[in-house]
């Protein structure tokens, strides 16, 4: 592996809060999102099921087709007849599903008919004219109902609503519970929520008659995989599909699942011979544009009296709604992070992915880790109280210590770096932990209820994609990697092409900082493609923006390709100047002799040799200055149930929160919010801070506000931001964010996961703080969200939130 010191020639930009000048277009309203692309488009939309579960009867599209301005109509059964079913990744039972409803509908909002019209308004009229007969079937909404004997089946061919049921045991779990002095357990329920990117799903699909091929513009988060899924579903070779991802208005995982819609768009684009645009409405997004699964998690800790955790058992029942492609993924990621920041030697995880008549689920920020850390950190808080220990102390006694790194968890996850005790100590001092505990008693006497909550969370990055298949044979994708093309142009400026996409994390600026310091130039001489184009971008099946992988494999690919360019530049310069490469230095866009600065050749002159005066190049050297590199993280293991790693870098954070609960109104107010974050080395602290705080606010939404509610008929009740409440600027604390830096030894830059941490750690920290505040009332927090209504009911009657 390339040594950190070998990467950089200068250190002028790496690690500095370099302004995101590459994104100036955003402040000017000149971003180029899918709906902004100027093309002569017609508009597509979907008739969606009003029933949660029903057999599809006759579909009459004649009135819609007769409307002036309507160009094409295709029903779900017609789409299913010409497409392959959706592939499943993690589940083990057979479940057949197509990109649109056929035979029956399985959730409210499932697409039943696609209509294309000349404009958005005619389209809405046409959708109203489609008549669909439904024969309602018994509905399964909640987990408890789905598992009942004789429950209606969502997928009859599966023979059960439990599509994945697996138990993984690592270490001596029976021994751990036998030797325990105390067992602490609880059942937790976590609701459905979502990070709801502000730009909804957006697709333009175009069919080219001459070549019988498709061009698709979509805000897809994982184009490397989507291009395979789409072409498989359409039954075409991948070379008949070009996928372009322009600017994307946030993703958070939610845009990993829009590809089924691309399939139906391609089919209608073929019919109308014009680019077809679909812009999902917010209602559609909240209705069916994917959620996190709701779940019931039973967790048990086996502890010694001194607080040492010997073992942990989990039973995880997850309501994956009705999308076979992603069902079971959250279970497996929860399991992979089951020990959190702790040195726990034995674990058992029983995992069940259960289908119901709720909307599809897809990877949302943190994917399972928010729930895993919520349940684990709630129980650590409980265990401390039960054993008469301080919640900080019990954590210190169980942390994996910095000197244990690299540390392998019972299932094989390798924690390569981290200093968990240091993060906790720093957070305690910053929040004023001891003083707060003192104040708490005094304030309670005055009728003010404050609580302090801690949460230590692991923040993994760079998925080893093979983990999806621990339940079933050889992975179709494994490990993780990215590709980059770096070129120096005629002017000696540098252009970077990544196989990946971005969702707003400032990748262009981060890349320009690193490349600038590798070549001793300024970042404004480095440009990077702002859109992924499968025709020219060096993508892999892994390519995309997910799993905190950018500063590991994406940067790795950029660095390796830049290094190749640099090596070639030095060779050309040595030849030109008549010196050895070892004597050369890079300085301000030129290569010069270390001993004789008069001997110098600019990048522009080197480019002239490489592209134009090619007869003056060293003998045998290829012309041009464009290099491609693919970079994979080397620590991925081949998955097997005994020993596998799901993630390859491990950041962590410590949240320390002080809340005040108004026991008259049930309102929760933040008094202080401290985050200590360790993501290893930072490329750009300004970007890192935004990620850490932004993701924490996603967690706050999940803890206090957001919930997709369903009635007993499977009707979703929260389909606008009036009912589904997002955090606003008012009501949030001023976050006090600081960092500990434990460089990651397995990524080229020492960087590790950034961006999901807050969404993972905040849930438990706030819940612990609320429970602490409500100690005088004996209220326990076992479910989310913690709404004022639930707080009041718990104080007055139930004692349980």
């Amino acid at each position, binding site marked *: 592996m390339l040594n950190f010191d070998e990467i950089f020639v200068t250190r002028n930009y790496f690690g500095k809060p370099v302004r995101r000048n590459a994104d100036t277009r*955003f402040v000017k*309203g000149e971003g180029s*999102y899918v709906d902004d692309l100027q093309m002569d488009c017609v508009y597509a939309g979907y008739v969606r099921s009003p029933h949660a579960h029903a057999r599809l009867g006759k579909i009459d599209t004649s009135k819609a087709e007769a409307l002036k301005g309507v160009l094409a109509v295709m029903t779900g059964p017609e789409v299913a007849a010409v497409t392959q079913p959706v592939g499943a990744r993690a589940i083990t039972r057979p479940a057949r599903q197509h990109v649109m409803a056929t035979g029956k509908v399985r959730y409210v909002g499932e697409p039943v008919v696609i209509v294309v019209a000349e404009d958005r308004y005619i389209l809405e009229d046409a959708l109203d004219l489609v008549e669909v007969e439904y024969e309602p079937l018994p509905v399964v909404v909640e987990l408890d109902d789905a598992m009942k004997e004789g429950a209606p089946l969502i997928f009859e061919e599966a023979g059960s609503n439990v599509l994945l049921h697996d138990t993984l045991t690592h270490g001596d779990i029976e021994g751990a519970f036998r030797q325990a002095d105390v067992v602490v357990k609880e059942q937790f329920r976590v609701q459905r929520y979502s990070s709801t990117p502000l730009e*909804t799903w957006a697709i333009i699909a175009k069919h080219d008659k001459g070549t019988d091929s498709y061009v698709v513009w979509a805000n897809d988060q994982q184009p490397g995989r989507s291009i395979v899924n789409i072409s498989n579903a359409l039954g075409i070779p991948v070379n008949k599909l070009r996928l372009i991802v322009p600017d994307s208005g*946030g993703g958070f995982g939610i845009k990993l699942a829009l590809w089924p819609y691309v399939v139906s768009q391609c089919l209608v684009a073929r019919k109308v011979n014009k680019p077809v645009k679909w812009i999902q409405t917010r209602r559609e997004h909240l209705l069916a544009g994917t959620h996190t699964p709701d779940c019931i998690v039973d967790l048990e800790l086996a502890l010694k009296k001194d607080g040492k955790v010997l073992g942990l058992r989990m039973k995880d029942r997850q309501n994956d709604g009705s999308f076979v492609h992603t069902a079971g993924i959250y279970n497996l990621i929860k399991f992979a992070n089951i020990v959190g920041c702790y040195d726990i030697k034995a674990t058992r995880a029983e995992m069940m992915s259960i289908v119901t008549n709720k909307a599809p689920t897809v990877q949302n920020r943190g994917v399972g880790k928010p729930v895993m850390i919520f349940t684990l950190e709630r129980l650590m808080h409980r265990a401390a109280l039960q054993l008469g220990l301080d919640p900080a102390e019990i954590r210190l006694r169980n942390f994996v210590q910095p000197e244990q790194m690299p540390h392998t968890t019972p299932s094989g996850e390798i924690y390569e770096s981290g200093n968990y005790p240091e993060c906790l100590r720093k957070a305690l001092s910053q929040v004023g932990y001891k003083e707060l505990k003192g104040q708490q008693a005094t304030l309670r006497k005055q009728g003010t209820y404050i609580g302090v909550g801690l949460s230590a969370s692991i923040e993994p990055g760079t998925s080893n994609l093979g983990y999806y298949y621990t339940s079933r044979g050889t992975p179709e994708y494994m490990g993780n990697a990215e590709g980059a093309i770096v070129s120096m142009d005629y002017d000696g400026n540098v252009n970077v092409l990544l196989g990946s996409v971005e969702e707003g*994390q400032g990748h262009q600026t981060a890349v320009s900082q690193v490349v600038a310091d590798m070549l001793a130039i300024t970042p404004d001489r480095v440009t990077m493609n702002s859109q992924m184009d499968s025709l020219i971008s060096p993508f892999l099946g892994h390519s995309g923006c997910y799993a905190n992988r950018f500063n590991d494999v994406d940067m790795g690919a950029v660095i390796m390709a830049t290094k190749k360019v640099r090596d070639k530049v030095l060779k050309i310069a040595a030849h030109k100047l008549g010196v050895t490469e070892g004597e050369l230095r890079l300085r301000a866009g030129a290569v010069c002799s270390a001993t004789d600065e008069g001997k110098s050749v600019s990048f522009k002159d080197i480019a002239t040799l490489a592209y134009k005066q090619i007869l003056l190049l060293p003998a045998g050297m290829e012309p041009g200055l464009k290099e491609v590199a693919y970079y994979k993280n080397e620590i991925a293991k081949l998955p097997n149930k005994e020993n596998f790693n799901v993630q390859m870098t491990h950041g962590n954070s410590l949240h320390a929160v002080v809340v005040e609960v108004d026991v008259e109104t049930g309102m929760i107010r933040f008094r202080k919010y401290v985050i200590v974050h360790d993501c290893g080395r930072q490329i750009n602290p300004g970007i890192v801070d935004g990620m850490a*705080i932004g*993701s924490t606010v996603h967690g706050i939404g999940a803890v206090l506000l957001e919930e997709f509610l369903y009635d007993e008929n499977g009707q979703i009740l929260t389909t606008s931001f009036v009912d589904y409440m997002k955090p606003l*600027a008012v009501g*949030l604390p001023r976050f006090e964010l600081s960092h500990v830096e434990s460089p990651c030894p397995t990524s080229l830059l020492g960087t590790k996961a950034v961006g999901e941490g807050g969404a993972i750690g905040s849930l438990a920290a706030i819940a612990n703080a609320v429970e602490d505040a409500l100690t005088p009332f004996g209220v326990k927090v076992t479910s989310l969200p913690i709404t004022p209504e639930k707080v009041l009911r718990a104080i007055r009657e139930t004692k349980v939130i």
Partner: protein
Amino acid sequence: MHTIRVKINGKDYEDEVEPRLLLVHYLRDKVHLTGTHVGCDTGNCGACTIFLNGKPVKSCNMLAVQANGAELTTIEGLARDGLHPIQNAFLDKFAIQCGYCTPGMVLSALALLQSNPKPTEDEIREAIEGNICMCTGYQQIVDAITHAADLMGQSRS
């Protein structure tokens, strides 16, 4: 169809529109000013914020015909040359991530700073309560607006 006449970013327009056409769709699809975004359809998110006769409005909650005779400013009309101090401040303070809420956020900030050139943090948070940002958690946006107030104060003095 109705004829509407509007002035957008200093330029006159006359167009035939359906009475049901939303103002935001008029701006985006007819005038091709795509900096005004749609994020929620219900007036909650503020991504479609523009100025109408000097006051901020949510253009997804208005019909194009209601704007007849009005003077509109969209994000594209904020700075004639270079960047407005608020735009610079957003870049300085990392107040952008995906950029989708940014035009609406910048215009809400402008509305605030026009009426209150030196707002407190609480006043800033209240002023952008009608704008949802899914990425930043708002803190860097609040800092950017404070910074913009300073920059604009300096340029006045």
